[in-house]
């Protein structure tokens, strides 16, 4: 143990005898613990919700999408398909056939610009032979066309076909099978239709605009994406589900960042207590600093005494805060203590998820803030004129 640590620890231990310093030390330590616990609980709460949104995102959107870097359609769809199928972890590969058009319901005269695409095979089953093909529409489209499941919806493609009367728009009538509810920023198509209908609307009779793959483990999308890029070269664009949902991912990160920044203010306020606590010790121990200087201590080592003191108070406060924050989050999640009305939130309780990386980040932030807070009075200690400190303490 260096002599700086020895002095710092002894000052802290001896502060019990100096009631005012002990009180401020305890307040600054508990203040920091409260801040750390609050930050961990808030982040766990947010992670709990966000993990669900991400899981939903990973479930609904393709994990990988390979589209041409230029042009509307894949030049070698077979090669793309083979490349995707050949990779480990890829469990399904489907073509994406999509385009733009307009939709209109029978109740509303005006038409609504929409994006349509093929639904994953097996997800939309025809109601019966001969009737209109089924379609799944987003909640927004259902609202604006005033349609409900079972209603008919007319979709007109932006593509035209030539007829003896001249170019005619391609129009298909669908029966709404399902309405999809999605998160606000989730990138979903407006209308999903069976593959053959999508091919008819888009005029892509073979091949695809893009190929989409699902992975056994969505978390491994990035390495698989790199492997696909290597196999296919630069004329193809490979996107992961995170990139495809970039606005939502960004919004989730932003949300977490904002919560971190605001709740972290509690830690900053607690750190101000550390400043006053250590400043008080510097003033009280001014004579000791002068004496240590006379014994050969450098200004740097005087500063280190107080930085160590800050680090010890910070460490104790952080450890306590981490213990309280993590156990509170785990208990809240385990025993489903905060309940929600299931019909509003689709969840019966508030989920909490403790991410070790976030806990480490909070702990590192709290420690860094505590040491930075100690740095202010420590600098003052280093600049103290030792002769004066001894002269004035007679």
């Amino acid at each position, binding site marked *: *143990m*260096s*002599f700086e640590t*020895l*002095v710092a620890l*002894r*000052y802290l*231990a*001896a502060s019990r005898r100096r009631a005012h310093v002990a009180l401020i030390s305890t307040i600054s330590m508990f203040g920091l613990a409260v801040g750390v616990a609050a930050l961990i609980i808030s982040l766990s709460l947010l992670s709990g919700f966000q993990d669900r949104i991400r899981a939903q995102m990973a479930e609904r959107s393709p994990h990988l999408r390979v589209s041409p870097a230029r042009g509307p359609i894949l030049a070698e769809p077979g090669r793309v398909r083979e490349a995707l199928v050949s990779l480990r972890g890829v469990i399904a590969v489907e073509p994406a056939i999509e385009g733009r058009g307009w939709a209109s319901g029978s109740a509303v005269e005006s038409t609504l610009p929409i994006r349509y695409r093929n639904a994953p095979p097996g997800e939309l089953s025809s109601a019966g032979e001969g009737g209109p093909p089924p379609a799944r529409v987003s909640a927004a489209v259902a609202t604006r066309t005033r349609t409900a499941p079972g209603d008919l919806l007319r979709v007109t493609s932006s593509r035209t076909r030539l007829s003896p009367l001249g170019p005619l728009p391609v129009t298909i009538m669908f029966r709404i099978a399902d309405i999809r509810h999605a998160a606000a920023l989730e990138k979903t198509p407006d209308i999903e239709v069976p593959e053959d209908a999508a091919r008819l609307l888009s005029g892509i009779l073979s091949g695809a605009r893009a190929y989409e793959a699902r992975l056994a483990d969505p978390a491994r999308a990035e390495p698989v994406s790199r492997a696909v890029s290597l196999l296919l070269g630069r004329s193809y664009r490979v996107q992961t589900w995170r990139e495809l949902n970039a606005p939502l991912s960004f919004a989730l990160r932003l949300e977490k960042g904002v919560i971190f920044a605001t709740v972290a203010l509690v830690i900053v306020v607690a750190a101000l207590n550390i400043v006053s606590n250590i400043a008080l010790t510097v003033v009280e121990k001014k*004579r*000791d600093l*002068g*004496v*240590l*200087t*006379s*014994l*050969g*201590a*450098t*200004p*740097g*080592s005087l500063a280190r005494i107080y930085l160590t003191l800050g680090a010890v108070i910070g460490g104790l406060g952080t450890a306590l805060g981490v213990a309280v924050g993590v156990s509170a989050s785990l208990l809240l999640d385990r025993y489903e203590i905060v309940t929600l009305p299931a019909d509003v939130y689709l969840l019966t309780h508030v989920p909490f998820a403790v991410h070790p990386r976030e806990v480490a980040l909070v702990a590192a932030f709290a420690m860094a803030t505590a040491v930075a807070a100690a740095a202010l009075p420590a600098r003052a200690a280093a600049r103290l*004129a*030792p*002769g*004066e400190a*001894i*002269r004035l*303490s*007679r």
Partner: protein
Amino acid sequence: MLAVRAKSLSKTYMGEAAPVTVFQNLDFDLEESVFAAVMGPSGVGKSTLLHLVGGIDRPDAGRVEILGVSLDDLSPKERARFRNERIGFVFQFHHLLPEFTAEENVAFPHRIAGVPAHEARQRAAALLDRVGLADRRSHLSRSLSGGEQQRVAIARALARGPKLLLADEPTGNLDSESARGVFDLLTELHRERGMTTILVTHNPELAKRCDKIFSMSREGILPATRFSG
């Protein structure tokens, strides 16, 4: 060789209302291995002179050389190391660190120098034994008597085997018997270790037992009166 060579020292402190000039153009030379007393009325700057000589304070003007080394030429870090190895301080109010035991206080100069804890404690114990406090090693410094505290302070000052000992009224706060005991200890250690010692004192009886007496006044420092050696 001169142990101390101070040339044209000036020092002014920022007082509460106005700057206070302690002294101007003060010269002070002292040969090696001399036990010197510095006397004079309060406020003439005896302690300030010790602080400047010991390098814990910087003069506004002038130069200080200790054992041939100019303190001005050293960086703060080098000056701290020089102080640790060559200079020992004893203050009027012992200035032991109250949270630490006698042994820990004496071990501090070693710990600051980076000597491992165990070895530092052993050396401190030996020194405490030398100043007659072997049985007080593990006592907290505040639980010792005034005379004992000052002995611990002397042991701490001598921990690193300094060549120059600066004692600022070490007996000023003690009863006459303890004062005599502390002074006797200082003289013994001075001879034993071949140090140069500067003792600031108000006690003419003790001063007379020193090799030289310097008298300080507002006008400066008077040439030494030599009693022995």
